[in-house]
């Protein structure tokens, strides 16, 4: 009889396990990061150039009163930053997650080790957070280069962008774990992401919309991210308003976190 039977491995904490899962994504990212840098840099440059400077010149000629007295690019840029957070989050929380369970089955491989489904979920959220921090930082730096920042408070758009991203990533990742076909995601992008991108106050104030439809904009998470990032970048943020935005986004992220722990377990422990 060997003594090995009596020496169980010391249990590791949830955070350590999540970090193991996070490092899996990091190893993968080492191969693909170059491609993502292009989109992280080009996305803000192209949008701020075309919409901010190009379209902005036309908009500014009509007066800036509707935009609160700021140039169009200063109005637009923080909105685009929040929208970029949504796009990054949706990209990370759909196909990569779905592929891990459906195509590559690397998730099934991972749950045969001490890692639990929730550790995989948390690990991927950590990776998504890292990608959001990267993209938000690049976006903010580009905004500054375009002269589209009005306040030092703009620095806070990075964490707010991350929070906005997580308000999308956590629930969508929870949803992705329940899917059998990847077509669900093209529907989500077409009927979820694109309308939100266009009508959540990114390109024009929601007050320009007909009054009856405005409440719809106010319940979308992107509007909260856009509104808060804009207020911060323009230096007009108030404490109460900001707290409401943060609370709303955090509540969505938390709901997604709880749902995802459940959907991961149900998918991987059958």
């Amino acid at each position: 009889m060997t003594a090995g039977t009596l020496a169980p491995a010391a249990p590791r904490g949830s955070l350590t396990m999540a970090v193991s899962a996070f490092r899996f994504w990091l190893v993968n990212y080492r191969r693909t990061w170059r491609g993502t840098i292009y989109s992280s840099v080009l996305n803000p440059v192209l949008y701020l150039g075309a919409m901010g400077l190009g379209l902005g010149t036309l908009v500014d000629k009509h007066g800036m009163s509707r935009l609160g007295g700021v140039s169009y690019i200063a109005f637009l840029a923080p909105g685009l930053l929040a929208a970029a957070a949504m796009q990054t989050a949706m990209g990370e929380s759909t196909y990569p997650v779905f592929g891990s369970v459906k195509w590559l089955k690397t998730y099934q491989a991972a749950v045969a080790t001490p890692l639990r489904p929730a550790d995989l979920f948390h690990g991927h959220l950590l990776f998504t957070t890292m990608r959001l921090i990267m993209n938000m930082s690049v976006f903010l730096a580009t905004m500054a280069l375009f002269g589209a920042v009005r306040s030092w408070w703009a620095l806070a758009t990075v964490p707010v962008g991350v929070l906005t991203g997580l308000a999308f990533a956590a629930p969508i990742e929870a949803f992705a774990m329940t899917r059998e076909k990847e077509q669900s995601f093209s529907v989500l992008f077409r009927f979820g992401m694109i309308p939100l991108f266009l009508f959540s106050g990114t390109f024009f104030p929601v007050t320009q919309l007909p009054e009856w439809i405005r409440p719809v904009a106010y319940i979308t998470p992107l509007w909260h991210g856009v509104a808060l990032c804009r207020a911060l970048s323009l230096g007009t943020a108030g404490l109460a308003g900001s707290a409401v935005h943060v609370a709303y986004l955090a509540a969505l992220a938390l709901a997604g976190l709880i749902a995802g722990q459940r959907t991961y377990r149900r998918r991987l422990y059958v």
Partner: protein
Amino acid sequence: MSQAPGSVTGVLDLDVLIHAKALTKRFGEFTAVDGISFELRRGEAFGFLGPNGAGKSSTMRMIGCVSPRSGGELSILGMDPVQDGPAIRARLGVVPQEDTLDVELTVRENLLIYGRYFGLPKSVIAERTARLLEFVQLAERAGDQVEPLSGGMKRRLTIARSLINEPEVMLLDEPTTGLDPQARHVVWDRLFRLKQQGVTLVLTTHYMDEAEQLCDRLVVMDGGKIVAEGSPRELIEAYSTPEVLELRFRLSEHDLAAEKVADAPAERIEVLADRILLYVGNGDAALAAVRGLGLEPLTSLVRRSTLEDVFLRLTGRRLEDG
């Protein structure tokens, strides 16, 4: 190793690594595993033999702590899979039926990632990776991407990956399904070496030759139940005859021959679609008797009984029929 015959110490016996009693798995209305009981001891190579859908993989997933049981008892390494999943899995090595390698990464990176899942330090992983890749004959492919590797190589890499934590028990679900004969023999050879090193092996298979080559003891499963248990030799002795005479007739004569051959002195006769099997003590004598009945088979073959015959006897079906 002391193993008292008829020992009833159950889960308290430290040599018992896996203990299952009336273990059941249901998916909705469907019962995949229907109240099976077995015990597995340290150092054994234990097999679940049965056709597809017999409940083998479901059993393996419950042992691997990735599938909660619907009923019965299950204890692995003295622990409950529901309570202690991570602690149990830390001491298991799993080779799943379908390859779950990260084909976009290199051979070495696959082992690195996996080693980290077990919380192993990088230096330990590097040392074991070198040794394990040598063991599965993939050392020269360490830096290559996994995608273009052959099926046999991927399987061997999966085996190396499952050994990164130096497991006490290896779970192998259909370890050679889908491999060509040569690749199968390489895998068998490696598994045989592991067994000789004292690693406890649990495997499922629907290949009787695999079960005969690797298993000290096995259970035959069918329809979620265990229908027989023993060593390959015990099972053959209990459920079959020493020899089998296989006869083939012209298709036009097959049915008539099947009728006539019933008079031959055989313990049991199985009429298959293309062949007739006579279970006998002496195949040559039986063939002479068949000829004595005025039957002249197209081809005849005398062979020893195998687990395939055991399965046919127990279930009335062939293993490959599923």
